[in-house]
């Protein structure tokens, strides 16, 4: 249930994101989910790709500072109240969340969540019958 997310440190310089995506494209890496957290003079790109190990390697070879972070991905219905229902369960069970981002696909929405404790979040969500994506599911979206 744990998904390997690629996190890349990007300096605030023109063309840096293009450069990164070019390297991924040239190595046939497909991006399923993508978000940027931006600070004053740098950003952190977080993304789910079809081959995180290879992506990390090729980015490192090209002098990017890149890490793999473990996250979970839950699936809720793509309708109003879908996310609320899942988050309610997390807050009731005191599960902390560092950050999250989401994408919707047809009638379902996927939410990527980074929590300090992946074991807890997985246990709590499964107990409440919230669908979690397996690594193999999401890498192939």
């Amino acid at each position: 249930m744990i998904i390997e997310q690629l996190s890349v440190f990007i300096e605030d310089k023109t063309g840096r994101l293009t450069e990164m995506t070019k390297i991924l494209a040239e190595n046939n890496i497909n991006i399923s989910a993508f978000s940027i957290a931006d600070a004053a003079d740098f950003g952190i790109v977080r993304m789910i790709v079809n081959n995180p190990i290879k992506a990390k390697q090729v980015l490192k070879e090209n002098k990017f500072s890149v890490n793999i972070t473990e996250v979970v991905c839950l699936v809720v219905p793509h309708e109003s109240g879908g996310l609320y229902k899942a988050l309610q369960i997390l807050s009731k069970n005191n599960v902390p969340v560092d950050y999250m981002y989401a994408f919707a696909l047809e009638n379902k929405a996927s939410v990527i969540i980074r929590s300090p404790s992946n074991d807890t979040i997985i246990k709590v969500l499964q107990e409440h019958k919230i669908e979690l994506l397996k690594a193999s599911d999401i890498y192939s979206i």
Partner: protein
Amino acid sequence: MIWNEHIEAASRDELTNIQNERLVKMIERIYYNVPFYRKKLQEQGVKPGDIKSIDQLKDLPFTNKTDLRDNYPFGLFTVPQSDIVRLHASSGTTGKPTVVGYTRADISLWSEVVARSLSMANVGKNDIIQIAYGYGLFTGGLGVHYGAEKVGASVIPISGGNTKKQLQLMQDFGSTVIACTPSYAAFLGESIQKGDIDKNNIKLKAGIFGAEPWTKELRFQVEEMLGLKAFDIYGLSEIIGPGVSMECEHQCGMHIFEDHFIPEIINPKTLEVLPYGKVGELVFTTVTKEAMPLLRYRTRDLTRLYTDKCECGRTIVRMEKCLGRSDDMLIIRGVNIFPSQVEAALLEVSNTTSHYQLVVNREGNLDTLEVNVEVDEQFWSDEVKVLEGLRTRIRNSMASTLGISVKINLVEPMSIARSEGKAVRVIDNRKKQSS
């Protein structure tokens, strides 16, 4: 082990006698063979016979780096070209490079002082030494090379760069000693830590590090990462190259081979000679070098000298690790700042790498200091708050060490230029902006 106990552990009287005798001959050589020195000595009314002891050094003229440039390339040589067997030159970042020449006897002298240096780190015939200083015009590679052969070590003349090969040969050949710049040693250490290399395959016991200023914090870091004892070697091409002085196993300052290179400490402003123990600019007179002897050469390095006896038994004078180069010193908003202070402050904050660069600008009439720090994947999490926390810790550490506020930029790894294994530590844009 002491390579030349007769000299390195001689009494003060014995050393002074050797120095006096050699200085007299050196003055004769430069007076009769180098027009530049003859003119300078004549201006001060000094004739060769007048100088009888090193006590008189304080009245003799200095030699500056600009004198080397003005006499480019061979103007300060005392011997004809036919006696020169080697030429080296500084990288020459500004204007012409400074050229130094060596006779066969100079090369032999250089091998001797490097052999003494390596013996301080107990390097001998049972060692395999990987020389990762650049070979070429830079004196580092070839300088250490000849001394290493003299002590009988097996030399791997790999030169600088090509980290992958460095690490491969280090394991395959079982290198026991590495000689390189401290910043490259840190880089090798980081590569070992994050790579697939089993630390048990690394047999290094000693590192011979020099050619750029470094801090004791970096020493601990490198010793830990590479599992060796780090020895500081000092030298500059104008004097001979590496092997002017070197630290012994007690790591309490570098022993200067003063039978060849007579040190003085001066006040860089008044040019007065300062007593032992006082911090000032280091000045050398090379009394034995044949091709290009220098009289009272101003190194621009700031340090102090002391003669209290070292536990190793050597009696020759010691110099403290250089506090910085008077050339490198930046004056920012009236505060004197050395890049080494920035390094120390950075390393105080745990988990930061040693790759950094100072950028000085002038906005209006105000100097600004920015420090670029490379972000290495070993120490960042993908949360903005963690990186911002790191930035704040670095900024606070610098503010308390330097006494001025500093802007910290977190930059991508390997984005700070490295040249010839020496890191480019300072970019001062103030001159450009004012012209």
